[in-house]
């Protein structure tokens, strides 16, 4: 019927829906190389470091350090895998700002917020599913390597910790994406993400405990990590689920700010 734009025989009634935008974001997610690279690195760190630390514990007579357990030792890769999923999360949005793609994305979804919501959803599904499988594998491999020190899935905190590792990584990734959406810059976003989630917790241990005891348990990583059956050197750790809830609150605040910036400002 139309000559200038080909024959649009294949056009149904068009309409933007959340589901369709999510479908589009899935296509974007699976069609760039960085997705495969970062997720592969995350899986390798999760399983590989868990295995290495478990083997070290088994070979030493001293056993576990204070506050840690057979469960948390096998899941230690979580804190390294978070770097990879954080980079993935930041790149998913800052890559669009860096290349100008964001303008094409926003022009076809001028309501804008469905794009951010769909990105968060695709990221959450991808990170949670891959990291849940990786955490389960890391747990099982770790317990085998620890021999007599190892525990089974029936151990009270085991399932919570395996799911906890996946939940922790998912929320960390969502935080990274919110940072990317707020700052619109890959380098700045990754720097802040690594600083807060990876560098800050060990740095605080250099300060006198009389200061740090007041706040280290509220750092997002220390709060969320309480799901993993370990106190990670925090003197007054939060309970597992309240700690995770606090980590979610930080993520929510950043997501809300990112949504506000997206809506108000020029794309």
């Amino acid at each position, binding site marked *: 019927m139309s000559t200038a734009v080909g024959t649009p025989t*294949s056009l149904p*009634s068009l309409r*933007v829906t959340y589901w*369709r935008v999510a479908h*589009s974001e899935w296509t974007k997610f699976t069609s760039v190389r960085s997705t495969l690279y970062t997720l592969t690195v995350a899986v390798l760190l999760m399983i590989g470091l868990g295995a290495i630390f478990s083997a070290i514990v088994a070979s030493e007579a001293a056993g576990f350090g204070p506050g840690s357990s057979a469960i948390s030792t096998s899941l230690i890769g979580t804190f390294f895998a978070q770097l990879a999923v954080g980079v993935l999360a930041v790149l998913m949005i800052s890559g669009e700002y860096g290349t100008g793609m964001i303008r094409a994305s926003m*022009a076809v979804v001028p309501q804008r917020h469905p794009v951010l919501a769909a990105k968060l959803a695709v990221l959450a599904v991808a990170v949670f599913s891959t990291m849940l499988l990786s955490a389960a594998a890391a747990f099982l491999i770790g317990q085998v390597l620890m021999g007599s020190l190892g525990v089974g899935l029936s151990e009270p905190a085991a399932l919570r910790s395996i799911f906890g590792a996946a939940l922790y990584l998912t929320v960390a990734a969502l935080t990274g994406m919110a940072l990317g959406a707020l700052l619109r810059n890959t380098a700045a976003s990754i720097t802040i993400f690594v600083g807060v989630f990876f560098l800050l917790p060990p740095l605080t241990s250099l300060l006198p405990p009389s200061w740090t005891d007041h706040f280290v348990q509220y750092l997002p990583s220390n709060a969320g990590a309480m799901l993993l059956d370990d106190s990670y050197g925090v003197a007054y750790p939060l309970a597992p689920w309240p700690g995770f809830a606090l980590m979610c609150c930080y993520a929510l605040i950043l997501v809300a700010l990112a949504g506000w910036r997206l809506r108000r400002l020029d794309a």
Partner: protein
Amino acid sequence: MIEVENLCKTYGDTRAVDGLNFVVRPGMVTGFLGPNGAGKSTTMQMIAGLDRPSSGSIKVNGQDYCRSKAPMAELGVLLEAKAVHTGRSARNHLLALAQTNGIGRARVDEVIEFVGLGSVADKRVGGFSLGMGQRLGVASALLGNPRTVVLDEPVNGLDPEGVRWIRRMLKDLAAEGRTVFVSSHLMSEMAQTATRLIVVGRGRLIADTTVDDFVARASNSFVTVRTPEPEQLRQLLIAPHVTVLVEPPDQLRIDGLTPEQIGTAAWRAHLPIFELVSQQASLEEAFMELTQDCVDYRSAESEVAA
């Protein structure tokens, strides 16, 4: 149809767009013309919902584009040549855009063939030339078979065949009853494709006219004379229907007299003439004349001449 009303956009202290009012009608190509920095791109970005107007309103097909239920069926935009993730293939890029509005693979393939990117559709966009990038941008604008099309400098970077292709496509789109709004900083380009013209300078509307009117205005001929006595010759020639401009040091520009009349008058007054040339203002000159007060960045040479 695009209706722009009292549109303003300020960045800090700079008024990029300053009270624009115009209507772009369906069924014809409307050119959006102005020197660099006139606010063309900013205006087009506001039409596409990408920049937020500081004040004023824009309606696309009678409604606020940002509230459109089926955006890609309403408006197709080509804003920058490469608003594209460089790591993705052309096909996946278009598919991702298409899926947001529920457009499927078949239509994506159709548009890829239409713009002539079939052989490179699965290559990464990062390796595309400027011309291929423009074709990809056109493809994304046409995916939803939109009623209104906005293209910012579409012939940029295209080879002559590509330029011809764009011109034909714009006319075809308009002939189908669509609204077609195309920007350019080249008057000659617009004269070949557009029916109506909206001319802006420094964010303000300078002219809202037809190309035919504009060409008629531009086709006024004039005569330039080089003489060592420009002031005396000016006094001699000045008359109610004649305008004489002195262009120092020794040149006159005369409207309303033929070279014969001027030459005869000078000979009778014993004024020497070194050069007497009948000139036709080009479209480009007419455009520059119209916008000369509105150019932000001009070369030192044209500063002196003006």
